[in-house]
């Protein structure tokens, strides 16, 4: 559905390996211990098959007695205990290192994500970033129980068992080595088919989640427009879309099992043939053949496991390279410093701007915003007001020209977001040191103190996802309070009070007044009543500034603003009349 116009980068295999190596710094001694312990404990696990072979030969020779059986049993119990302990310690150590590295990486990822230039994120869509910080982090964490034993114990078991087989009777190991290419072929087949099927299955899953989420978020729309049956069908189609791919994945799994079983059967038959030849020629014993058979049987499990885990490993690696791709985006060059003149808060000097490779939105834009005053920007949709606000705030960097702005510049838009957490956490986001008294004072100033009485636990009430629900107007009131606490030199409000439907418009306007009081303000307004109260008004059209002056000057000049103003006033008057004639 979404175009892959400018997705965020994905690290290459080499970059991923380099970054993981860098992150493993400080854990390398532990990793060496994991290797040594892993080899040792799998070696201990070889004792039972070999000692059974020994027993078989003794029994056949008639030299076994109760003492032999006791020794054999004791050795097996001891190896069971030591092997279990060694395996457990190996996996615990490896798991801890794995999670420590993952925690470091996910923190680096979020830190980098937060400082990325916004246009990169906007182009790729926040969905991409969210999927990397959530789905990918979860995928890498969830892969641990499958991947860690595979990379430590299982891999060592194969190597050590082959070694054991070679030490026991080398022809068996040679025979097994001949069978190994079958497994390599099977693995290559699986890697060609598996990821595609599993990838399609996962894509179907996210489409399904999206359909469910849309119905949930749009509950009122679905109900109000009578779309329940259509949406029900969409969800069920998406649901079965996953089923079809899951079933196909099981077909692939069955085909994989068939190939693996072929390998197993071949290995065991080879052991029988080799054993037959060796024993027939007197080069080996029945006991050794028994031990070789038991060793090969022990090998088959881990090999199958490894083939199955390759898929988990691949998907974890894909997620890892997506995380590292973002975490290691190099820092961008700083915006060239610029100074505004005395009494000027913001100075745009010949600013040119475009989104990516899109058309130029601004060309040679020149604008001074006086300090300590309130300036409004008006114009129709698409005139470039929001882009101007973002360029002034430093969220978008100009292609050419310079922007001088105060050090503490903040921007709030009509897009509200209530963070999951307490009301206090939400408000202190921009001012971590604020005391409860500061918060109370700010809430009083923006007229949001009444909200505090509504919340069951006051400042400690959990709001946001899963918490106490807030209306859009309340959320925006909090956003304005948050801004007041952050106490910026320049506050830019981009249609920040637009969400208010009816009477709350006045409430939010008063909150905005409190926020702008005593500092430089830039207001992107779509209600002319808002613009009219500002000290200066800038009118934009097609990325150019066509008028700039006070309300009275612009009305008197009779330009675009003058026309808008008279149309708006006419509407207001007629409407008042209509109101009186209503029932």
């Amino acid at each position, binding site marked *: 559905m979404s175009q892959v116009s400018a997705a965020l980068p994905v690290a290459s295999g080499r970059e991923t390996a380099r970054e993981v190596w860098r992150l493993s710094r400080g854990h390398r001694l532990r990793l060496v211990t994991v290797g040594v312990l892993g080899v040792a404990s799998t070696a201990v696990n070889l004792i039972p098959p070999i000692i*059974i072979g020994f027993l*078989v030969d003794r029994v056949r020779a008639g030299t*076994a007695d*109760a003492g032999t*059986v006791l020794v*054999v049993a004791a050795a*097996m119990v001891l190896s*069971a*205990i030591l*092997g*279990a*302990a060694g395996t*457990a*310690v190996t*996996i*615990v150590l490896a*798991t*801890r290192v794995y*999670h420590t590295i993952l925690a470091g990486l*996910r923190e680096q990822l979020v830190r980098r994500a*937060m400082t990325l230039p*916004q246009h990169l994120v906007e182009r790729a869509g926040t*969905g991409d970033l969210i999927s990397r*910080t959530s789905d990918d982090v979860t995928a890498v964490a969830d892969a641990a129980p499958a991947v860690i034993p595979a990379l430590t114990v299982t891999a060592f078991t194969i190597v050590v068992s082959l070694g054991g087989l070679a030490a026991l009777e080398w022809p068996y190991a040679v025979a097994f080595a001949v069978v190994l290419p079958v497994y390599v072929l099977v693995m290559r087949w699986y890697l060609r*088919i598996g990821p595609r099927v599993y990838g399609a299955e996962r894509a179907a899953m996210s489409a399904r989640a999206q359909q469910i*989420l*849309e119905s*949930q978020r*749009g*509950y*009122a729309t679905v*109900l*109000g427009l009578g779309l*329940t049956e259509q*949406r*029900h069908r969409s*969800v069920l189609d998406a*649901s079965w879309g996953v089923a079809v791919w*899951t079933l*196909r994945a099981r*077909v692939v799994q069955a085909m994989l099992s068939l190939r693996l*079983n072929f390998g197993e*059967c071949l290995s*065991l038959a080879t*052991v029988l*043939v080799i054993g037959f030849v060796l024993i027939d020629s007197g080069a080996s014993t029945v006991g050794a053949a028994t031990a070789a*058979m038991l060793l090969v049987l022990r090998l088959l499990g881990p090999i199958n496991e490894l083939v199955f885990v390759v898929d988990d490993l691949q998907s974890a690696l894909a997620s890892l390279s997506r995380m590292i791709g973002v975490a290691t985006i190099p820092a961008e060059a700083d915006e060239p410093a610029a100074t505004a003149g005395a009494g000027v808060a913001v100075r745009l000097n010949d600013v040119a701007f475009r989104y990516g490779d899109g058309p130029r939105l601004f060309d040679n834009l020149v604008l001074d915003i006086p300090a300590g005053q309130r300036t409004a920007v008006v114009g129709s949709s698409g005139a470039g007001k929001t882009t101007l606000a973002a360029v002034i705030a430093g969220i978008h960097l100009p292609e050419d020209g310079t922007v001088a702005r105060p050090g*503490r510049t*903040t921007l709030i838009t*009509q*897009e509200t977001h209530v963070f999951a957490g307490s009301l206090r956490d939400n408000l202190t986001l921009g001012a971590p040191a604020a005391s409860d008294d500061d918060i109370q004072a700010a809430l009083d100033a923006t007229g949001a103190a009444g909200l505090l009485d509504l919340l069951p636990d006051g400042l400690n009430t959990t709001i946001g996802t899963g918490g106490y629900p807030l209306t859009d107007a309340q959320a925006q009131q909090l956003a304005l309070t948050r801004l007041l606490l952050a106490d910026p030199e320049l506050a830019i409000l981009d249609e920040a009070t637009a969400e*208010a*439907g*009816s*009477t709350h418009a006045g409430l939010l306007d008063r909150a905005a007044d409190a926020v702008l009081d005593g500092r430089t303000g830039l207001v992107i307004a*779509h209600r002319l009543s808002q613009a009219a109260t500002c000290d200066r008004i800038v009118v934009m059209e097609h990325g150019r500034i066509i008028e700039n002056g006070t309300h009275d000057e612009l009305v008197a000049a009779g330009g675009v603003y003058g026309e808008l103003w008279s*149309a708006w006033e006419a509407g207001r008057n007629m*409407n008042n009349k*209509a109101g009186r*004639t209503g029932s």
Partner: protein
Amino acid sequence: MPPSIPAIPWAPADPPAVQPFAADPGTTAGRFLLRVILSVRRVTVPAALAATLWQVGEAAVPVVMGLAIDRALSTGDAGQLVLWIGALVALYVGLTTAAKFAVQLTAYAIQLLQHRLRSTLSTGVLHPVAGGAHAPDGGVVSLMTNDVGRMANGVQLVIMPIARVVTIGFIAVSLLTTHWVLGLAVLVGAPVAVWLMGVLSERLSRDTREYQGLLATTVGMATDVVAGYRVVKGIRAETEATRRYQQASQETLVGAKRNAGLLGRFLMGSGVVTGVFVAAVMGLAGWFAVDGQLSIGELIAAVGLAQALLPQIQSIANDSIPNLAGSRASSARILDALQTEVVVAPEGDDTPSVTQRPVLEVSTSSTTIRVEPGELVGVRTDDVTAARVAEALLDPRESGSEVVVRLDGIAAGDLSARDYRARVTFTPHRVTLFSGTIRDNLTVTAAAPELVTAAVRAAACDDFAADLDLPVGEDGNRFSGGQLQRLALARALASDAPVLVLHDPTTAVDSVTEHTIAERLRAVRTGRSTLLITSSPALLNSCDRVVDVPVRVGGVA
């Protein structure tokens, strides 16, 4: 997709028709789970049979190998060697075929159940035709994906454990025929080993759930921070947001390390239990061999069988027991969601009927808003009252509302949900677009294609929505707030509804465009009734009448 991957022949490509599961008030979670997993017996019974053949086949491999060593290798008889290799190949062909059927049938059973459970939740919770007791929260997504998946996995409980218990029985009987003590040792020892490992895994599974909760919190926090990305950037709170995330991440790391420790204890415990058990059986067999009660062939077979016990015991303890716990817990959550949705819809023949274009009346405690057929009426009031009126129009069955909605004088609560929806279309203030193109979104309501064109023009979307085949993006993120509102308005206008209610449709639209919309609105709604809840002067100005609903003390009119 390469044609080398055939779909399972018996699985349909289109969603099968499914009946929702009944969730009567008396049902318990366990009973509900049982009803669900027993509902696909035509799939699970053959699956269990195939799985049993598969597992017994796996256990027979060491036996066949042992016999081959005894009969062919120790005798040097080449004919026997060929015979036993043939037996081995036949065994593998059999068990592979059985495994294929078992895996695919099990997957099919799981998918059928998932689909039917999802359908049940979709009609019961996500898309109740009559409106639910309350709007579903974000938890419904997890309910319809994770919980449905976990509960449907419960169906494996009537497939794999049966196969494994039968296999343990097979091993025990095989050993009984070799030497009764060995068989008895397995019959007594295997259940004890399963029980011990179940006890060991219990603490680990509990902690794993706790750790997964922690991880979900951290991941949720990252999602939340990234979702609020623009807000964080705007307020320059990047450092603080990162610091908070780091704190949660470190707490999760502590949980992960503790969980790894418990995993180690479990691995240690289960390794010792199974290792000692198998060593004991092998030791006993060795003793009987030394004592002359077992032949070499029998000794090798006994050792092989004892080794084949391991995966069976481990799998019951590590897979089936947690599966039972997980599917029960999910069953309880799903049942809970289904049972709280009490549908109070009077459906049937005895509900009163109304005309195709009814008179709409909305009564608050102070005022009655009356909309005659074909009228365009504006309502001007405060936020809280507007929200109450909107809620009542969205779902007139919602109990406890002081606002009464009537069609042709009949209370809307007495009408069938379908009749009400067929007359009254309501557009909420909050815009939701569905994934797909603009056209996909506009045609969901449209009775005819030309209505879409007219609606696009009336809602002043013609400037940015010239190409209706553009995708709207995730949550409509391709468009600004004002554009989204105009698209939602176009969608409502395309519906050709007899009565259309619009709640604050243009709050994010600039004043110039709002004027255009106000001018075009009347023409597109000619002959149909429209109720506009708004404070916009331009929109109110275009109405036939404007009703002021006064604010009562306490905020509710």
